[in-house]
């Protein structure tokens, strides 16, 4: 697979990428700060013989929130799960193309999937705390990766993660209560705390607010904004308002193709593609 040093995806006539906009190019004001964290090139994902994702090329930047939008079944979640190899758990799934994390191919034989997932964390659509105490939920990752040497160190990691996830004040007096006893929004923040406890570099969020009410959603969005400075965040969302509110880069997927990728402000105010325009104005999807 060819390594592309420039951010622009290759454009070939006739391919779905041909009419794609110049994507990912940082705008003038943040050329300096934009650092590519993950680079996907010509990624196709198959389920058996069915092609779910067709040659998608996207860059994920450090300290940015990248949103994937598009109608249901467009492949945005499938693509997200390719970024930390969660598709490996589906026997029929197959990935082609390259996905690099800091220049290292994550699908190469040298990449340990355990290490990869420690570096690329994930938050799911439905809050899925383990049926353990709040403390044990957060301590789970540090324990399996051996990040803490003793109890005090582990306590510190748990407190730091819960604080970053904005949950510490609410649960500090009941760390031994079951994680499943929290409200939906708290559970989702617990899952975020669990993900950041292993100190990942990228956090993937698969529709993290779709099971939450508007108030809990607002809290998660605030949290995403707070976390942005530390991690590269990728969020899949059905809500275009959410993408517009929290992200700096937006990728629009349709029927397994990447239609358009660029600055969130450009995508929402000045889309280059008719299909993006139609989707954003609610003509379909």
């Amino acid at each position, binding site marked *: 697979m060819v390594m592309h040093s420039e951010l622009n995806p290759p454009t070939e006539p006739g391919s779905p990428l041909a009419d794609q906009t110049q994507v990912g190019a940082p705008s003038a004001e943040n050329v300096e700060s934009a650092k590519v964290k993950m680079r996907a090139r010509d990624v196709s994902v198959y389920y058996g013989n069915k092609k779910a994702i067709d040659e998608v090329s996207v860059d994920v930047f450090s300290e940015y929130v990248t949103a994937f939008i598009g109608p249901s079944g467009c492949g945005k979640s499938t693509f997200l799960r390719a970024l930390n190899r969660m598709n490996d758990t589906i026997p029929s799934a197959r990935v082609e193309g390259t996905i690099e994390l800091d220049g290292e191919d994550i699908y190469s034989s040298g990449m340990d999937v355990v290490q990869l*997932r420690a570096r690329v964390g994930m938050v*799911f659509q439905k809050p*899925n705390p*383990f049926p353990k105490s709040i403390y044990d939920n957060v301590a*789970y990752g540090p324990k*399996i*990766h051996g990040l803490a040497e003793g109890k005090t160190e582990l306590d510190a990691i748990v407190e730091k993660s819960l604080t970053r996830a904005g949950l510490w004040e609410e649960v500090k007096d009941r760390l031994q209560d079951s994680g499943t006893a929290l409200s939906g929004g708290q559970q989702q923040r617990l899952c975020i705390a*669990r993900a950041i406890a292993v100190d990942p570099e990228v956090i993937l969020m698969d529709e993290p607010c779709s099971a939450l009410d508007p108030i809990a959603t607002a809290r998660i969005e605030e949290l995403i904004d707070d976390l942005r400075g530390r991690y590269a965040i990728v969020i899949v969302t059905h809500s275009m308002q959410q993408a517009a509110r929290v992200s700096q880069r937006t990728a629009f997927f349709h029927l397994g193709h990447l239609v358009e990728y660029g600055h969130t402000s450009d995508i929402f105010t000045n889309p280059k593609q008719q299909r993006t325009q139609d989707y954003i104005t609610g003509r379909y999807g």
Partner: protein
Amino acid sequence: MSPVLPLLLALGLGLAGWLVARARAWSFKRAAPDGRLAALPSYHAWYAALWIAVPLLAFFVVWDFVCSQLIVAHVLASPEAQSLPASGLLRDTILNEAYGLATGDVQRAMNDQSNALAVPFREAISRYNLFGILIGLAIAAAGATWAFLRLKPDFAARTKVERLVLLALLLASMVAILTTLGIFLTLVFETVRFFGMVSPIDFLFGTQWNPDPMSNATNPDGDRYGAIPLFWGTLFIGAIIAMIVAIPLGLMSAIYLTQYANPKVRSWVKPALEILAGVPTVVYGYFAALTIAPFIRDLATSLGASNPSSESALAAGLVMGVMIIPFVSSMADDSIAAVPQAMRDGSLAMGATTNETISRVLVPAALPGIVGGVMLAISRAIGETMIVVMAASTAANLSANPLDSMTTVTVQIVSLLTGEGSFDHPATLAAFALGFVLFLVTLALNFIALRVVKRFREAYE
């Protein structure tokens, strides 16, 4: 009276009623201005047929009891009965024999008097059978009249028929419950009788089990009825040795099947495990007695044990453990599979290996279900009879050595009830007390297990 005649009568009259009522319903339908009835003609037909057949059959069930009383009363009033002995065994024998002669069940009488009595018996039987049939016909006619008076175009026959069907379903479901209740009452009744002879304290806490069916029944020796060795043997074989085999093997096979096996392997192994559950326990029993027990004895001898028993608790427990594997494995399989995929994904996405995910997330989450399964398996194991009857001995030893011969509650129940003691001897009644204790223990285990499993199900729904 033979039951064939009433059955044929009910069937024939019911069918006649069915046909007539259906024809009548069709004529209603043709006559009705819009061609509609409140119920389909077949429901009219069933309504009439049921009103004829059900009271008829109910009458004959009652009549069967009443009739025999009336026949005996008639015979005793006859002049031939005057010479009968006033009471006692002979009187009953003669009456039974005469009745047998009258119905043709007995060809030749042992007592001369029976032959004489057979005549009034024959007379009475034919008279009361005729009575019975006449009354039955009258009842059927009454039922038919009632039904036909009510059948009109706007009569809701369907709801009436459905109500009766519902009642029949309810009765069917009550059979199992009433049977359980009956078993329970039998046990309680016999147990109380036993505790009237042997003190419950001696029974529950004594350490010597050696009932003698030939001893004096009126003054039993309480020291011979200490059931502790039996309870211990049952626990040791069924709940300890069998579970040491069944829990790890069952759990591991469940983990393999749900987490690692590819669908093809799973589709072969799971049915194979279920076949294991379907093997009759007698077959396990001779496997234990003929193969495992001698093997263990030889092994013990080669390891230096002097004179090991050929019937060891270990042999029975091991085979019972193998028998229980499918129970543990299928319950564990179900509860691990019931842990939401989101838990598995959540753990894997943290960078946990499959192994860590299973041991730290899936098994703890499925634990209540697994515990429930194990408790059901224990309750099954301690109630198991055939394996221990064949592979364990009948000697009640209070020992912690698995190579010793031991006996269990179920084995003792079998040997006490198949022994030669009479049914009012404490040695026989002890079987009921043992059965009662076993019943209570397994009932409690099942109850707790079902509660645990239910609570677990609620947690994920």
